[in-house]
């Protein structure tokens, strides 16, 4: 190992794990090296705290300052940053609180983290084209047999077990957070962006199922098939068409593809196809 590599690993190890920092080889008067190293250690911790506090204001409000700081310290220790952009440092918070004691004893924490993170993903997702309203109205009947939808990169689907949106609204309005309420069945939500503003809405269960399938690349007949769990056969085409129309009108849809996949012969009306997890790594806010 070169001297330069040894020095960098020594300082990195000190910042990540603490210790006396002797391996760094700081040039300083006796007793002063610790102070100088401490400036970097404090900056490392504070910078990551600041990034997480920006991403998780609701979690902070819920936990209170002392517990939130404890959570951040534990998260920082468990998940060193591997992305050059600090914006993505907090990407595993929901997973962390769901799987690490004592946080996992409070299942609402994962929902609180996920609700705010999903908003962030929509907020700074890449741009994409938007299909114009009415673009699907004139399609011939045969086209619907192979129609697939490509969604705007800002579209994100999540299920929530708790009334986190009520807590979020209370936080925004400066009101005390309401009591937590656990749903009997998780409620589907959708996050998206239009004209630089982020939006979210709860979904009917049939709409959520249809949207999940479409986001995963299912064709329109498969979406219709799934809707038969909620609707009589003769109503399904009307419901499916209605959903598609609302998705286009709301700005969820970037384009449509006609033709079989994956032969490469599909004809796309707009952007190329994206999976539902696209756009989860991007820019800083």
């Amino acid at each position: 190992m070169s001297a330069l590599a040894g020095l960098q690993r020594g300082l990195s190890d000190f910042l990540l794990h603490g210790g006396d920092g002797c391996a760094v080889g700081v040039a300083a008067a006796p007793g002063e090296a610790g102070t100088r190293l401490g400036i970097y250690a404090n900056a490392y911790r504070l910078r990551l705290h600041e990034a997480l506090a920006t991403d998780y204001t609701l979690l902070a409000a819920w936990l209170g300052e002392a517990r939130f700081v404890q959570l951040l310290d534990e998260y920082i220790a468990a998940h060193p940053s591997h992305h050059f952009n600090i914006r993505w440092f907090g990407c595993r918070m929901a997973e962390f609180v769901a799987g690490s004691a004592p946080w996992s004893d409070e299942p609402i924490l994962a929902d609180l983290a996920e609700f705010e993170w999903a908003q962030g993903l929509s907020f700074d997702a890449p741009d994409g084209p938007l299909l114009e309203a009415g673009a699907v109205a004139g399609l011939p009947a045969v086209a619907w047999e192979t129609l697939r939808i490509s969604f705007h990169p800002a579209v994100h689907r999540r299920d929530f077990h708790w009334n986190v949106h009520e807590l979020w609204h209370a936080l925004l309005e400066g009101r005390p957070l309401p009591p937590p309420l656990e749903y009997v069945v998780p409620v589907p939500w959708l996050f998206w962006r239009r004209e630089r503003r982020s939006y979210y809405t709860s979904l009917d269960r049939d709409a959520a199922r249809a949207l999940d399938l479409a986001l995963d690349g299912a064709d329109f007949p498969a979406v219709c098939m799934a809707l038969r769990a909620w609707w009589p056969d003769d109503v399904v085409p009307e419901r499916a068409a209605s959903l598609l129309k609302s998705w286009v009108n709301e700005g969820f849809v970037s384009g449509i593809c006609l033709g079989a996949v994956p032969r490469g012969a599909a004809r796309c009306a707009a952007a190329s196809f994206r999976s539902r997890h696209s756009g989860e790594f991007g820019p800083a806010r």
Partner: protein
Amino acid sequence: MGTYNSLPAAGFGLGLRRQHYRDVVETQPRVDWFEIISENYMEAGGRPRYYLEQVRAHYPVVMHGVSLSIGSVDPLNYDYLHKLRDLAAFVEPARISDHLCWTGVDHTNLHDLLPLPYTEEALQHVAGRVSQVQEFLGRRLLLENVSSYLSYAESEMTEWDFLAEVATRADCHILLDVNNVYVSAHNHGFDPRRYIKAMPAARVQQIHLAGHSVAGAHLIDTHDAAIVDPVWDLYAYAVGQLGAVATMIERDDNIPPLAALVQELALARRIAADASHECVA
């Protein structure tokens, strides 16, 4: 993309911050150019890119990065470099800069501008990587001196000799942060004018000014306050030594209204004009 492709972004600029997006677009203040933090605009979408495009339509924009980690022993991050090059194709900046530092090792990012040891080994390492980056980008890079709070026992030369030699060997330019020189001089006990005097004037293509804070016996480069008089004095000295270099004010925390920064920039204009006049006389 915009109208200002051929302008050199000379004069006096400000860092473009999201708190000022609307003010900049709506009031078009007397600022000669804006500097963006490259990483904040690498994804082609959302509010940041929208406002970047709006600002770019009215002002020259230069790009300043914090993640190149030019001194790290890790391999260069070509994912990052591709994003940087793509952004440069969109912005068409007069300058692209980053820091003479390392930000992590073993693929762990420490999100800080960490100082290098000033050794021949580090010099060769950095100069070689700057050359690779410049070849990839197809243009010269500006490297900025960072503030530091420690130095290494194994250093073999001064920071200013190291910076000047990197610039010579890699044939790159220098972004001289006058506040960083002042902060490091205080923290390490050297004469900041000696640092500035050692800079190869032809390679210094941009100057940064900023505020700092006091933490015990040390100064910390926090960019959260107005520029203090001793830094203005050092800036006047730098202008006298280096000539009329494009200058900007960085403010990243405790951000005041745009008008206050424009006013602070006017002070930079006056000091630079006076220093240039004295130099000529």
